[in-house]
């Protein structure tokens, strides 16, 4: 009874925050646009009403869900990794190698193999900073930030010097992935790819992992109070490394999904900041896997809406981006939540005081 009420209050707060942020967005658009209605329509309405746009939002969610989940796992475990970006690249690399160079497999074999490779790649790449932190207390913020650069440059090096497709033209990419590894549209005529299904599944798996399994209990306790976890006999170092590896695997999967889904090949510098977006996504969802679906949708919606507004009105791209950042701020405003919730709470408490 009590938890349901809490959820209700949260939804109430969320609705309020979204409403407030929409108002801000609308005000800004009115200030700058000479065709505000068209701009707003393109930003807020069309992404939801136009099937193509809506399907694209779902596709756009995919890497965000994976990097968001990656961050959620480490943050829940009290590890402050900022390394999803680099792990995304390495997972995309190992996934792409499997997807491009393994031939003659059926899709049922090939796709799982690609995913396994991506998991191994991303996971191993995260293992390093994980072990540095667990064994030697090397700060993970520093190490993961550095590993991001190392990962991205390493992939770029291989792409330009070792695994470049001869036909890639001015920008290096691998050869296209085998058709047996490619994720196609779920329904013809609607752009959403099967990778979206994988994203949903990943969120469910991470939810179960974190909240329904022993491992999840261990990870979360280590995150909440390592002294308590240690006292309960939980191996803290193992938990830290494990959370890093799971996180890396998830980020790596996100990279591979891009390769065998949206993009069809591993492109040089294919992501600019998907890993960092994951941090925002996860924090917006308070590191909750199911919440991440919501916040990733919100973020993708803003991205697609922003593009659409730029294409469909006189609002320039940079302004769309500014509006996007303001919306993120408002939606994550705890004070707005707390204010709305506390009014309820105080009204409730206050009534009893009076009685």
């Amino acid at each position: 009874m009590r938890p349901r009420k809490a959820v209700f209050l949260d939804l109430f707060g969320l609705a309020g925050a979204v409403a407030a942020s929409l108002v801000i967005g609308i005000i800004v658009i009115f200030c700058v646009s000479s065709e505000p209605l068209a701009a707003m329509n393109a930003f807020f309405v069309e992404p939801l009403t136009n099937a193509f746009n809506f399907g694209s939002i779902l596709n756009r969610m995919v890497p965000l869900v994976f990097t968001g989940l990656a961050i959620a796992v480490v943050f829940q475990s009290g590890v402050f990794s900022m390394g999803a970006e680099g792990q995304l690249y390495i997972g995309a690399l190992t996934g792409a190698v499997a997807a491009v160079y393994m031939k003659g497999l059926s899709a049922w074999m090939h796709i799982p193999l690609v995913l396994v490779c991506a998991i191994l790649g991303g996971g191993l790449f995260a293992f390093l900073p994980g072990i540095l932190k667990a064994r030697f207390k090397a700060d993970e913020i520093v190490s993961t930030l550095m590993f991001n650069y190392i990962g991205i440059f390493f992939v770029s090096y291989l792409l330009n010097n070792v695994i470049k497709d001869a036909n890639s033209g001015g920008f290096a990419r691998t050869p296209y992935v085998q058709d047996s590894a490619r994720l196609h549209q779920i329904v013809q005529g609607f752009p959403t790819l099967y990778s979206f299904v994988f994203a949903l599944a990943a969120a469910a798996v991470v939810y179960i992992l974190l909240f329904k399994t022993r491992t999840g209990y261990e990870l979360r306790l280590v995150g909440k109070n390592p002294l308590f976890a240690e006292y309960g006999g939980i191996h803290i170092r193992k938990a830290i490394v494990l959370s890093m590896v799971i996180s890396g695997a998830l980020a790596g999967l996100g990279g591979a999904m891009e390769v065998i889904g949206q993009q069809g090949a591993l492109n040089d510098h294919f992501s600019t900041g998907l890993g960092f977006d994951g941090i925002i996504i996860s924090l917006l969802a308070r590191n909750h896997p199911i919440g991440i679906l919501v916040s990733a949708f919100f973020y993708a919606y803003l991205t697609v809406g922003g593009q659409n507004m730029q294409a469909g009105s006189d609002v320039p791209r940079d302004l769309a981006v500014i509006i996007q950042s303001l919306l993120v701020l408002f939606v994550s405003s705890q004070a707005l939540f707390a204010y709305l919730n506390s009014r309820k709470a105080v009204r409730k408490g206050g009534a009893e005081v009076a009685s």
Partner: protein
Amino acid sequence: AGCGSNKSGQSGSSQTDIGGSEAPLSVGLYINGNLGDQGFFDSANAGVQRMDKEFGAKIKVVEGGSNQTDWAVGLESMVSSGKYDIVIAGTSQMSDITINLAKRYPNQKFIFFDVAIEGLPNVYSVIYDQKEGSFLAGAFAALVTKSTELKGSNPDKTIGFIGGMDIPIINEFRSGYEQGAQYIDRDIKVISSFVGSFSDAPKGKELGLAQFKQQKVDVIFAAAGAGGLGMFEAAKELGTYAIGCNVNQNEVQPGTVLTSMLKNVSDSLFRAVDRYKKGELQFGVSEQLGFAEGGVGLAKDDLYSKNVPQTIRDQVEEIQKKLESGEITLK
């Protein structure tokens, strides 16, 4: 090359409507990156803006940003909106996306730059002989470093190249440049450095300073976006020389930027749309634009005439002719 002057190239239903002045031509440009790159995109944008100015085309430029995840969607939403008579896109990263869309939207006309797309009845593509252009820039640089007339030249036979990123397209510039320099003098040494991004002007400047000061380079060719702007500043401070890239950058630091290797996306797009408007543009083919068509070349403006000694200019003309005639062939 097949510059379609034959009227038989007229095809497609929309073209007949355009002759009338009532509906202005609507052109959309999709940029898979951001404006302000000092390269393709700015140049393409300039071309499109000129369409607006010169024949009142209704134009729309959409910046896709640097996340590649967004590009396919961005271009498709322009196409699927059905608002544009012509959609323009470019770069090798977009070619497959565009081919795919062109097949799915056979009624949409595309103009594509920088990669040859052939055999699709609704795509016209244009490519540029940038390697030849860079060859000429390399030859020019070699002449500059050997020059005794230019104050900033030193006796060392060393010239520089600064690239934005170590990627194929930039290495094509570099390769042409090196070949051009070697053509003038086998002993010329080319120092190549990469900034690592197209926006890091301070690092471009540092690399410039290092090449000029430590390696006795006296002229650098930069294909590095804003990194090049940083390098120009270094050259200016030291009294050495620079060669611009993509667009005419001679005026950025007059007297320092002696010339620029042009890659005329702007003119080529304007020219194509202009011909489309007149019903002359032939789809389904690709054109390569070289010196003759103004697709590539060195920026020979007043500053060039003023700052570059006659002897060098003469030699450049000669080499350009040889390139045009095929007397010089590149690897």
